[in-house]
């Protein structure tokens, strides 16, 4: 057939957000990015704990960090973190913590000591806005008027949520679009990752799980469309699956954030959240725009890895969930059970309240977030729930050798006392025995904001928690960020070593550690 006469229509351009986004109705006198900028500047001038929320202004590098104490000789590898790090351009400041552009931090532990490199992820968005000197596309919680065409999620992708090295490749991940690959040695951004032809701009969530065999499992979702990725230990895409979630999109599908894997199953908590971009576009981010449906239950989606169409859904009492610790399978008299721990919060104020307030320098109650263990019986469809209510905790991690297995311990930053100027952050670290509920704790003290900590296996060992726990913390008194290294089996005595940066970093979300001996 003659191509010139084989006629095709042009686009109806399937796009995001879709019609009806009126940027003309925005209330110029309301909470504008400019007002946030001035209010934050005034608050940060009087509260040293707010410094990390200023964000970074440039890439960072330090060849030799100051080491306090004695670093374990066998602790060698690359510790990555990622988080929202660019909050202001021109006269504007973002109105939600989640909006900032991603910056990947890499701490390299080697025979020479510890070096640090921090680089912004040079996404399409970051490039365009750096060139323009202003924000040019809408963000999750800030109704920036688009000044360039939005051709899909990657037009707004900040790659700001997590970073992981897998099979020698470094990925900076968001939730609504592609992962961005960065060079392992320089952290130079290589570009958006398309796992297979035709899957450009597909959602690749920020919490992939690396199983003990080296397989990377992840999901992506948009409304009730659900996608599963299996990347083998060599970094090749082994399989993708597509599923349609049996959920009411008026109540669910806005924020499926984290996942767990067991040997045979994938598990995803689905909190009752919907996101309303028409309101966000009008500069009206709030409890109606990021709506947590208070009467609706938390749903847990459980699907066989080899056929996610055969999923089961369990219902639990209403609450908000961002993060999962771990899950494993066990056999009971009544059939196979999935046991999973996660952090839940029955106070819904974080997403639309505290995470907005902090951007104007205001401290608002984020609510207690607590560890739960749910046991889901696949034969009976029944679930039982255990709650640990001895403080607030988040960012759960475990010994990576036990992902998908019956791990006994979960590590979280935690708080049990109020701090007037720093109540948005944690002041301590804990290791929880998820069977007994007992905790071992180390209190960093009032000067610190404690971030996610990871368990690093001691090379050659096999026993759970035989290794170290490492993590970042911001010291408000010194205005610097440090990495603390603990003996994982004895955190109460404090870190065995602490590595200090000569500068502070923006508070991040998540990260991962790649031992050098696993280098590919």
């Amino acid at each position, binding site marked *: *057939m*003659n*191509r*010139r*006469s*084989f*006629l*095709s*229509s*042009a*686009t*109806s*351009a*399937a*796009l*995001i*957000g*879709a*019609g*009806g*986004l009126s940027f003309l109705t925005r209330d110029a006198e309301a909470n504008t990015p400019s007002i946030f900028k001035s209010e934050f500047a005034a608050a940060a001038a009087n509260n040293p704990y707010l410094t990390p929320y200023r964000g970074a202004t440039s890439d960072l590098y330090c060849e030799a960090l100051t080491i306090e104490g004695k670093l374990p000789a066998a602790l060698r590898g690359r510790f990555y973190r990622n988080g929202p790090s660019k909050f202001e351009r021109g006269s504007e400041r973002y109105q939600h913590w*989640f909006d900032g552009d991603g910056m990947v931090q890499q701490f390299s532990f080697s025979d020479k000591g510890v070096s640090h490199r921090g680089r912004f992820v040079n996404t399409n968005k970051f490039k365009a806005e750096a060139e323009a000197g202003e924000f040019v596309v*809408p963000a*999750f919680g800030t109704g920036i008027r*688009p*000044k*360039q*065409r*939005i*051709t*899909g*999620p990657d037009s*707004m992708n900040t790659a700001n*949520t997590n970073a992981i090295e897998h099979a020698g490749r470094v990925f900076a991940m968001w*939730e*609504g679009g592609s992962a961005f690959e960065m060079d392992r040695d320089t952290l130079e951004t290589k570009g958006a990752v398309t796992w297979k032809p*035709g*899957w*450009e*701009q*597909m*959602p690749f*969530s*920020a919490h992939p799980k690396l199983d003990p065999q080296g397989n990377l499992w992840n999901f992506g*979702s*948009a*409304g009730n*469309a659900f*996608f599963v990725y299996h990347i083998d230990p060599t970094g090749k895409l082994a399989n993708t699956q597509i599923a349609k979630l049996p959920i009411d*999109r008026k109540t669910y*599908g*806005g*924020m*499926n*954030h984290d996942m767990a894997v067991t040997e045979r199953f994938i598990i995803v908590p689905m909190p009752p959240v919907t*996101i309303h*971009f028409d309101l966000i*576009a009008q500069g009206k981010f709030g409890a109606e725009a990021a709506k947590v449906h208070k009467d609706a239950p938390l749903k847990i989606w459980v699907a066989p890895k080899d056929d996610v169409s055969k999923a089961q859904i369990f219902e639990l009492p209403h609450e908000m969930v*961002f993060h999962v610790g771990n899950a494993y399978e066990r056999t009971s008299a009544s059939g196979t059970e999935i046991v999973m721990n996660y952090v839940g919060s029955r106070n819904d104020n974080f997403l639309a309240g505290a995470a907005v307030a902090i951007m104007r320098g205001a401290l608002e109650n984020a609510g207690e977030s607590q560890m739960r263990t749910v046991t889901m019986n696949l034969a009976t469809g029944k679930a039982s729930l255990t709650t640990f209510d001895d403080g607030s905790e988040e960012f759960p991690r475990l010994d990576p050798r036990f992902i998908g297995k019956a791990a006994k311990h979960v590590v979280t930053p935690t708080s049990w006392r109020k701090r007037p100027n720093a109540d948005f952050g944690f002041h301590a670290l804990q290791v929880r025995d998820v069977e007994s509920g007992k905790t071992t704790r180390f209190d960093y003290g009032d000067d610190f904001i404690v971030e996610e900590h990871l368990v690093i296996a001691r090379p050659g060992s096999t026993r759970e928690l035989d290794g170290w726990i490492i993590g970042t913390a911001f010291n408000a008194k010194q205005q610097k960020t440090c990495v603390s290294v603990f003996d994982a089996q004895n955190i109460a005595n404090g870190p065995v070593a602490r590595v200090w940066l000569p500068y502070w970093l923006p508070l991040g*979300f998540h990260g991962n550690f790649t031992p050098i001996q696993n280098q590919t």
Partner: protein
Amino acid sequence: MKTFAFVLSAIAVLALTATDVKAQSAASDCPVLQVTGLKPDSGMLMLAVYDSRESFFKKPVWVGGQPVGASSTMQVSVCNVSADEIAVTAFQDMNGNQKLDTNPLGIPTEPYAASGKPSMFGAPTWNDTKVAYKGATAPIAIKF
């Protein structure tokens, strides 16, 4: 930490088989489409012209395709359309399958554009993309 609930519109891909209309390179007395921002030496420029709100994305009155050469700019004449206003939609068919490819969420994976002032956010509409045709003297801009 967020999933964007992307609302997706349908892709209208019309596999017409008409043979009596061809794209013409810059004929002297017909309105000209000035297409910019193309990826050079890649695939085909595919164009569709509509003459009313009712027919928009349903029934083009003029369609055409031309290979994209070394330049990122092309001029294409649109003749013999009897309308005061038209709307033009376009995509660059990178793989030669004669349709606008999309990912599983329906998001285009090939470059696309439209006349007029297409919305920054969402699918083009007749109102956004309509431009004067009859008596047009300046080129009609199509920016990829």
